[in-house]
């Protein structure tokens, strides 16, 4: 009994202490989500443990029972990292905007426009040297993404249009307009997608023989990690980062302090858009070789979950983007291994998102509970 009480107190201390909450609350949210998802899987009549094991196997964290030739756990794992790369960029795009109080829900659209422009400019120029083509793809992706992000910022500061509404409108506009161009000019009649880009321009190296495996190598994965670290430093340790946070907390006070709020907001949207652009090219000219018309990548939306789960902290986001990617990537294998519909992956991300959104409330609640406990004891 006494022991039980002690355990309870220990848990409360972990969850209630503001010092540890940055890590304890997201983990608590994840555990809650796993439990809820497990219940759903049980209701559907499958074994959640088998399902979760299937997820891990599919993502290359655990070994599958058997592999095809040249395949193995490392190949799966590298593919997971390949998919994680755009996710990480996209979540960083959401995070920096959110730091300034802006909700960049237009990441998907910015990814699409960056990916499309890079595809038709560099992706189809097969003669170009890969050493020129790949950096150019990244550069074009960044610039186009920055412009698309900047447009939203411009609408916000010039016309006072809520960034959420304008991003959503632009998402639809990009989606339909590029669908028109893809369908009329760049369509591959078999796949019903845009024609594949050349290997010279692709940011993922395919079928690389390493040891006994043939695997993907996402060349921008390390770049994404480095960008996350730089961004962490920028947001927390520089005067510009301080200005951005000030605007996010209280833009009136930021203006009063002499910060040029509009200019900073525009900067933030340019950076956010550039990151989204990198997500776009690492997705449409990396993980994939082509663009599916009339659709937006779900990465743009999942990245909101990733960013929330990572507390908008670039380092936290490295971990949360890994987690969400594992769920996403493992779902296909889980379906065959455990017989749970693939859609459960999206549902799991959604549930994690739901619990993350309650994070602020949980922080205060647990802190208050802890305070009460301390007062009594």
């Amino acid at each position: 009994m006494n022991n039980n009480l002690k355990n309870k107190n220990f848990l409360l201390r972990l969850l209630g202490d503001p010092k540890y909450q940055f890590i304890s609350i997201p983990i608590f949210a994840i555990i809650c989500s796993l439990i809820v998802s497990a219940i759903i899987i049980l209701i559907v009549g499958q074994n959640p443990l088998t399902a979760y094991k299937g997820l891990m196997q599919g993502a290359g964290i655990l070994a599958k029972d058997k592999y095809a030739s040249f395949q193995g756990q490392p190949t799966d794992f590298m593919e997971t990292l390949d998919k994680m790369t755009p996710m990480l960029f996209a979540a960083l795009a959401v995070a920096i905007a959110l730091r300034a109080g802006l909700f960049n829900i237009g990441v998907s659209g910015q990814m699409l426009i960056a990916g499309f422009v890079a595809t038709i400019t560099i992706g189809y120029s097969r003669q170009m040297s890969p050493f020129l083509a790949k950096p150019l793809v990244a550069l074009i992706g960044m610039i186009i993404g920055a412009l698309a992000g900047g447009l939203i910022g411009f609408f916000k500061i010039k016309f006072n249009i809520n960034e959420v509404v304008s991003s959503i409108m632009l998402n639809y506009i990009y989606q339909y307009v590029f669908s028109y161009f893809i369908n009329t000019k760049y369509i591959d009649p078999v796949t019903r997608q845009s024609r594949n880009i050349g290997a010279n321009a692709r940011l993922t190296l395919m079928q690389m023989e390493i040891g006994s495996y043939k695997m993907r190598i996402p060349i921008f994965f390390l770049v994404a990690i480095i960008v996350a670290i730089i961004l962490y430093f920028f947001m927390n340790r520089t005067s510009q980062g301080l200005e951005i946070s000030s605007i996010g907390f209280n833009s009136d006070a930021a203006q009063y302090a002499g910060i040029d709020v509009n200019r900073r907001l525009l900067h933030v949207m340019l950076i956010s858009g550039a990151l989204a652009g990198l997500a776009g090219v690492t997705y449409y000219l990396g993980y994939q070789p082509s663009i599916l018309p009339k659709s937006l990548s779900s990465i743009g939306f999942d990245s909101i979950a990733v960013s929330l789960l990572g507390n908008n902290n670039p380092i936290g986001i490295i971990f949360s983007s890994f987690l969400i990617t594992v769920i996403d990537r493992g779902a296909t294998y889980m379906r065959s291994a455990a017989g749970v519909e693939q859609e459960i992956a999206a549902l799991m991300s959604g549930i994690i998102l739901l619990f993350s959104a309650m994070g602020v409330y949980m922080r205060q609640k647990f802190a208050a509970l802890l305070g009460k406990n301390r007062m009594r004891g």
Partner: protein
Amino acid sequence: MLNNIIIDGLSFALPLLIIAIGGIYSERSGITNLALEGLLGFGAFCGGLFMAFLSSSFTAAQVPVYLSLIVAALGGALYASLFAVLCVVFKANQVISGVVINILSVALTGFLTRQINQNFFNQPSDKFQIGVFPRVSVPFLKDIPVLGGFFSNFYVFEVIILLLLAITWYLLYKTRFGMHLRACGDNPQSVDAAGIEVNQVRFKAVLISGALSGIGGMCFAYSISANFSPTVYMGAGFLAIAALIFGNWRIMPTFVACLIFGFARSAGNEIGKAMKLSSSFFDLTMTLPYVLTLLLLIFFSDTNKAPRALGEIYDKGKR
């Protein structure tokens, strides 16, 4: 051609309107509602599920389509209660909650549709058959030149929506509840001081918002195709938000905004057809409502006055 523009325009504008009115209820009470898209989808899912079960157990061709609207309303309200719990009870950020609700709605309905089709109907499908909603014309009036389009070949749900328009207008502007709701969006402290529970009013407002969105979503499901499928998430919820902002959070101006969107869309399609352009061209005309929204916002967002307490979390303890 003019008739087609009117007929298609109305069948798009009116469901949009009912969703936008849902948004007005929520936002006038002070709750920013970006969740409309998710609410309408979940409502349509419930209506679709209802129809799928009915049509599998009853052979009769005439399953009660009207009932499906009620089920959709209930489903929308049920799902909206999750949104309300998030931002009224848990006091989470309303914008974030709205986005969460949308993402979860797509995921949840996608998963459930597949799972239910698998388990109960033994078919791998992401759709529910929902049947056809009756269309009618008013004799004589339909033959009036130009205006005849307003009276011909319309869905019965359009009449229901107009009826709901009257009811929601009455409720918001003429009753005690409506007065309390509008006061909550302006100065919740004053509402509290008058002995009215702010969070209760807001909770109800969000539920109404869900019910109306659910109806709108179901109507879209009928008018897009005879299915419930993920295509119901085509952005109508966000268009509705644009419409209500453009309509200055008031019902009648929002009605006008919805009509503009509807007719812009149908006119684009008809012109495309008339010019015998390829089907890809419709991708371009599809952008019309969104482009129009952006343009309208550029020109009008300055003169707009959002409810004063919109997005403000109400905490009784804090005074």
